Structures are given as structure tokens and as C-alpha cells.
């Protein structure tokens, strides 16, 4: 099993969710986060003082799927979340050791 973790622009969440639903992904977790990448943030002025807004609001989306689905999930998120402008985010794939559905106690692929 693989955990696909994507940091995306907040307004892209619905598009990403729809794209994943179309793939048959059954569940997803979204968290509000702040972050920056290579290009850092931007400078703003508040009451006459300049400040660098390094941490911009993002959304982190996490899905756990079968190994075989990982590539298509990454592709789907990539297509849905991309705008071509800086700050689009990143997608990571991580190995998952085990999984369990709390309600029923099912483990492994049945838990997904």
C-alpha cells in the first residue's frame, strides 16, 4: 500500500477530490497547512512595515491506495492541481506498512 501525500493550493481541493473519486478512490484526508517552496512567498505591507509572507496557506491531501493505483493517483492529482504558476505544490509517495478499518477490524487491502 502507498500513501500519496500532496500539498496543493487550497482552491484546488474540490477539483482534486473529484478527480480521485472518478478513479474509484474511496477515502481521503485533507488538512489546512502553511508552507513554502523554492520560490518562497511574497512581500506585503501592513501598516507601513514590509514583511515577507513566507508561509502561504495550502491544503495537504492524503490518500492510501493499493500499490498498483499509485501512479494513476499521482497523475490525477497532478492534472487537477496544476495551474502552471508558482506555488502549485508537490506530491510525495510513501510506503505504508499496514492499515486497519476501525469499525470492523479489517486489515490490509480490505481496509482501504
Amino acid at each position, binding site marked *: 500500500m502507498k500513501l500519496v501525500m500532496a500539498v496543493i493550493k487550497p482552491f484546488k481541493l474540490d477539483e482534486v477530490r473529484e478527480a480521485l473519486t472518478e478513479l474509484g478512490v474511496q477515502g481521503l484526508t485533507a488538512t489546512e497547512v502553511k508552507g513554502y517552496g523554492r520560490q518562497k512567498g511574497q512581500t506585503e*505591507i*501592513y501598516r507601513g512595515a514590509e514583511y515577507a509572507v513566507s508561509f502561504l496557506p495550502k491544503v495537504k491531501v492524503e490518500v492510501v491506495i493499493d500499490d498498483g493505483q499509485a501512479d494513476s493517483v499521482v497523475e490525477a492529482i497532478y492534472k487537477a492541481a496544476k495551474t502552471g504558476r508558482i506555488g502549485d505544490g508537490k506530491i510525495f509517495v510513501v510506503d505504508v506498512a499496514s492499515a486497519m478499518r476501525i469499525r470492523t477490524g479489517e486489515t490490509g487491502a480490505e481496509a482501504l
Partner: protein
Amino acid sequence: MFRVTTKTAVGIGAACAALLAAPPAMAAVEAETGYVFNTFSFLFSGALVMWMAAGFAMLESGLVRTKNTATICLKNIALYSIAGILYYLIGYNLMYVDVGGFMGSISFLYNPSDAEMALLGADEATDAMVAAVVDNSYSVASDWFFQMVFVATAASIVSGTVAERIKLWPFLVFVVVLTAIIYPIQGSWTWGGGWLSEMGFSDFAGSTIVHSVGGWAALTGAIILGARKGKYGPDGQVNPIPGANLPLATLGTFVLWLGWFGFNGGSQLALGSAADATWMAIVFTNTNLAAAGGVVAAMLMTQIMYKKVDLTMALNGAIAGLVSITAGPDLTNHLMSIIVGAIGGVLVVIAIPMLDKFKIDDVVGAISAHLVAGIWGTLAVGIFGGGDLMVQIIGIVAIGVFVVVTSSIVWLILKYTMGIRASEEDEDLGLDSAELGLEAYPEFGRGSQRA
């Protein structure tokens, strides 16, 4: 120029009449009706000014961080309550009763007059009893109430500036001294009929007497307290600390604007004649126009200076406009009040970053909006309102020196006894957690991520 000489005489006459319990100089209605309207004006206007306490609370809680929001709310409701109690216990007498040149009487409690008690207690009210009461032009308590909400306003100016790092109880002790002693004494020099008013100092609703007083006390407090941790960097760098809730700050500003109609309008001190009613309408109009001028000027200034309009500066612009017109809202050419307010708006946008240059950390811009605009508003009376510019300057300086000296003494005594500054750890954690043990927004942010 824009103030007719007879109006000056009649205005001062009406003010003195209202203050010194002589028959109203402008009564064109029956005395008892005039009494009812005058009393009503004080009560209703006072209630509007009380509502400004809510405005300050909202404005301040919108401009501090989430972790300090509950504390600022508590400070606002506490200082309003303390101001009221102290002004009843000592303050009003010190400001208005048997005023010599420099202060009133040191006596305690301020209750209904003997004439009023006789009328209220009588089984059968006689004409003589009514006349004795009505002779004062307004109910004794109504004037207390109206004046009380002004001292509360002065105190609430201080709370915004020193927010996010001042300890709660030492701050409230300062409020006790400010409302019981400092404000009443300088108030006795002016509205109480003391030496400044005898010189001809003119401050209709308190640009100096209320707003600058609050502003000076805030300034000395900010200097003696020091800036928030992390606000200023080692190379003259200024680090913005954005507020938590801009809609609340906006709502607070609108509430203050509304309350100001009572603040300035009620300061006509009478509603018992056609002339009074007309003046009050003029005052309302000027008050609104000055605020509007302040907003537009601040918006244009920030657009030009920073290429973007800063909402918080626009809000400060409204306040600065209101403070600027407060000394002389009886201009009969309303265009002048737009200009007076606009200049206030320009001044506040310049003053805010300037204070930062001096490393004076004013969380909400209160010093800029109340002290700087207050000084301007008082001077404006000498420029636009037909007052004596020299006397205005004397008043500004005298009251400024008095408040700076007395408030500094109090701040320093508090600093070296109780201590006024929250510990570094408490400041990091947030005063809500450190001093109050609760969160303003427990469902949002870090709060919701804890069990």
C-alpha cells in the same frame, strides 16, 4: 470666520449655564419641557457614547492576535466599569464641583440634588418643587452619566496601545488613577470652568480633553512598557504583527462612528430650543463628514505610499477624522469639516510608521488616531473655528505636560512595584492562556487540534 460672534457668546453662555446651574440662556420653550429635552439629550447621547466602549472592544480585539483576544475584551469591559465607579466615587466632584482655578472639590459620591430629592419624595409635587429642579436645566444624574462615558472613552484609548504585553491588574490600577484623578483635574481646568476655560480655550467635545489625554497616557505607557517581543529587529526593521479579525475591527470602527454622534452631538449640552436642535444637527453632519474625509484621505494616502489600500489604516483614518472634528464640530460651512477630517486621515497614515521608527509599539494606532489627530483638531478650532490659536496651543501644551508627567509617574511606580510587563514566556504563550486561562476561539486554530 465661520463662527458668528453672537454664537460664540451664546455658545459659551449655554455651556456655562449648563455647567453652573443657571437658567438656560437659550430657552424658548417652557422651562420644564426644556429640562426634559436637555436631560433626554444627555441620557441618549451618553448611551451612544457608552456604545463606543463596545466599538473600542471590537476594534481592539480585531487588531490583536488570537492568543490575546480574550484579554483585550476583558480589559475593555473592566476599564469601562472601573471608570464609571471611580468617576462616581471621586472623579466628577474633582472635575465639576466647586472648581477653583485648578481643580474641583475632593469630596465623595455624587447623588441627586436636594431639590430633586424633594420633588421625588413629595406626596404632592408643588410648582415650587418642580421649578427648583428645573432651575438646573437638566437632571443632575444625567450630566454625571454623560460626563462619565467621556472619561471611560479616554481610558479605553490606552488599552489598545499597550495590548498584548501589559499585565492585566497593573493596567487596571493605572485606569483607576487616570479616571479618578488625572482626567478629572485637567477636565476641571476646561469644562469644569477652571483656568483654561477662563482663558478662552475651546474644545467642544474633547479632542484634547478626552482624546489627547488618552493618547498621552497611551504614549507614556508604550514607552515605559516597551515594544512587543519580536516587533522591532536589530537593524531598524519593523515586523508586522497582523490582527486576528478584520471584520471585527471594521465593525468596531462603525460602532465608534455611530457612538460619536452622541459624543459630539450631546456636547451641545442642551436640546431645549430651536437653536440647540439646529446646532446639534450641524454637529452630527460635521461629525459624519469629517469621518468620511478621514477614511478617503487615508485610503488615498496608503494607495499612493504603498500601492495598496490598507484596511486597518482606512479604519484609523475614520477615527482620526472623528477625533479631528471633535474640538470644533459646530462649523457652519460643512466643507471645512471634510477638510479637517481629511487632514486627520493624512496625519494618522504618516504617524503610524513614524512611531515605529521610534520603536514605540502602538498595537492599534491609538496614539496616532487620538493624540496626533487630537492635537490637530484642537488647533483646527483656532484655524477654522474662530478660536484663539495661541490659547488653543497653551491648552494643548498645558494638558499635555500635565498628563505626560502624571501618567509617567504612575506607570513608573507600577513598573517598579507590581511590574507592568508580562513575562517573556507569558507573552509568547499569549495572555489569554497565561492570565485568563481560556481561549477566545477554542474551535479554531490550535485549540481545535487539542483534546
